[in-house]
């Protein structure tokens, strides 16, 4: 059947609410407004105010509340409108959620899920276009999911809730209206692992989130590029990358985040550390330009990796 990324997220949340009474949804405008991106539309009526909580503009406050509720035995699903505003909750996420298990000598766990949209490309300007998934992936103690397609969007919350740790789910805003064919029942394959989206022999393209579809489109212009969707940025599935690079001998990383000190840098380093002698070319990276994302359409397009940029780089590397 056909399903949109948004409906897939909706299905995931409803399944969670239906199957576990400890689950509740809390965030700004998740209730009466129906969700900033209409993901939770109608849920307040269906599940009532004891499951769906319209939170005040207090990202740190309700994220901290979520941590406490998780410590207290509930399964909170916190929605932060967008990654941009998650910075106001960063202290709670990093200094408490991520650290508590280890810092308490393994006594306390924080089974907290935080969902947020991410990414640029909608001319929303510099403060609403961040892509900080890679940043969060820097933090030990967190797990980071980046559903890039409808099937993953459908299962990400299930994966997150079956894990007793803080899990951040980054839903790419540009994907919400994507419609794809999916099986009737979610297949829920390989949580927290990467997937080869397209087999190939000549080059390995490693990407995640909003860049997956773009990369696939670019690769369709070539006969034999292998595309890996990381799906989960922490823990990072190094093996799937190494196995592919050992076969293709060339690696290209496509990352919507900034380049310096980034996830793409980390992946490149890991390939170098483990597959140095397999490489026929230096690892290459395509990332967002190191500027705040501008408003003007042409500038924004130039700042964020596009299909043509990816295709051009592949062509260079295959030459």
């Amino acid at each position, binding site marked *: 059947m056909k399903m949109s990324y948004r409906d897939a997220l909706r299905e995931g949340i409803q399944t969670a609410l239906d199957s576990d009474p400890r689950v509740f949804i809390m965030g700004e405008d998740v209730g009466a407004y129906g969700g900033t991106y209409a993901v939770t539309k109608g849920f307040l009526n269906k599940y009532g105010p004891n499951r769906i909580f319209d939170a005040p503009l*207090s990202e740190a406050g*309700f994220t901290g509340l979520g941590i406490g509720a998780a410590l207290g035995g509930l399964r909170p699903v916190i929605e932060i409108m967008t990654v941009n505003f998650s910075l106001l909750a960063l202290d709670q996420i990093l200094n408490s959620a991520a650290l508590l298990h*280890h810092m308490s000598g393994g006594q306390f766990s924080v089974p907290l899920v935080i969902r947020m949209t991410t990414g640029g490309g909608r001319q929303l300007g510099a403060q609403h276009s961040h892509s900080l998934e890679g940043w969060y992936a820097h933090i030990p103690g967190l797990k980071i999911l980046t559903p890039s397609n409808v099937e993953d969007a459908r299962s990400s919350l299930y994966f997150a809730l079956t894990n007793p740790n803080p899990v951040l789910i980054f839903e790419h805003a540009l994907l919400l209206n994507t419609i794809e064919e999916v099986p009737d029942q979610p297949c829920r394959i390989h949580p927290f692992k990467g997937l080869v989206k397209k087999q190939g022999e000549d080059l390995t393209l490693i990407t995640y989130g909003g860049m997956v579809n773009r990369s696939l489109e670019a690769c369709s212009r070539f006969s034999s590029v292998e595309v890996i969707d990381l799906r989960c940025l922490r823990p990072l599935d190094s093996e799937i990358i190494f196995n592919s690079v050992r076969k293709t001998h060339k690696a290209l990383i496509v990352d919507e985040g900034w380049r310096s000190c980034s996830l793409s840098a980390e992946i490149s380093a890991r390939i170098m550390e483990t597959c140095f002698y397999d490489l026929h070319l230096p690892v290459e990276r395509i990332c967002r330009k190191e500027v705040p994302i501008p408003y003007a359409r042409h500038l924004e397009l130039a700042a964020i990796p596009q299909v043509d940029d990816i295709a051009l780089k592949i062509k260079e590397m295959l030459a």
Partner: protein
Amino acid sequence: MTSINCRKLLFEMMMIRRMEELSLELYTKEKIRGFLHLYVGQEALVTGVMSLLRKEDNVMATYREHAHALLKGVPLSSIMAEMFGKSQGCSKGRGGSMHLFSKEHRFFGGNAIVGAGLPQAVGLAFASLSQNVKRNTVVFFGEGAVAEGIFHESLNLASLWNIPVIFICENNLYAMGTSLERSQAQTELTKKAQVHNVISQAGDGMDVFDVIEKTRQALSYVEEKKKPYFLEFKTYRFRPHSMFDPELYRSKKEIESWKKSDPILKLRVHLLDREMITEVEIKKMEDDIELLMQEAVLFADKSPLEPVTDLEKNLYEDVL
């Protein structure tokens, strides 16, 4: 107050004092390292509050939390071992002085980010409420936290959603070296709670009976009304903020004058005057405490170090 209860209060306050003074000695011997924040002078506050809490209640505190952990039931020996960085410490040497934790005793830390425990306590109380568990949640913080935005977010959330949590502000007048008047335009802290429609009351944190009385009122209000409560207790720390504080911001005279209202001295005199205790019995208490301290230090000393090979353990909870 029965005399037994009063003796227990005195014993606990004396024990906290001794634990803190001993920690300082152990710090100079380099057995304890890192930051060390002592509670000397403030003993009546935590002792009064904790005397009304039960094992199943939730407590969150700051980095100045040795006493809170102790009175919540965390064994002195495991607190000491934690400060020594040992494997039998209550956080397996991962936490240290500022991050004491005990799941068994529902002691949720030990948070060293000013204000960060407040929303989490709201969440704990939220969980108890929604699970219909009868359990109080109490969060302690210094008056410094009142300046943080998270203080206001937390009070608003608790008030808006009728979450029964007790906020306890330990107002010792200084946040490190910054006095309340130099950091807040409004120094009447109860007013800050009132703007969020949270019932509030101020009390004398140097008087254990006043602390008990005010806390009792808070507990019964919270239980009955299922709403939050804000308590501010004025108190004073006799020692520097931590081990790295030359105390340039206050005078010796000021400290000495506060020492006249030493909460332990006050309780002692109170009990002696009423013949609820004798000097001999107090001496016996001191000896008993000394014994407990020696045992704890011995335990901490003997406790093995965590093997470095376990360093990366406990980063994630295992999936069942």
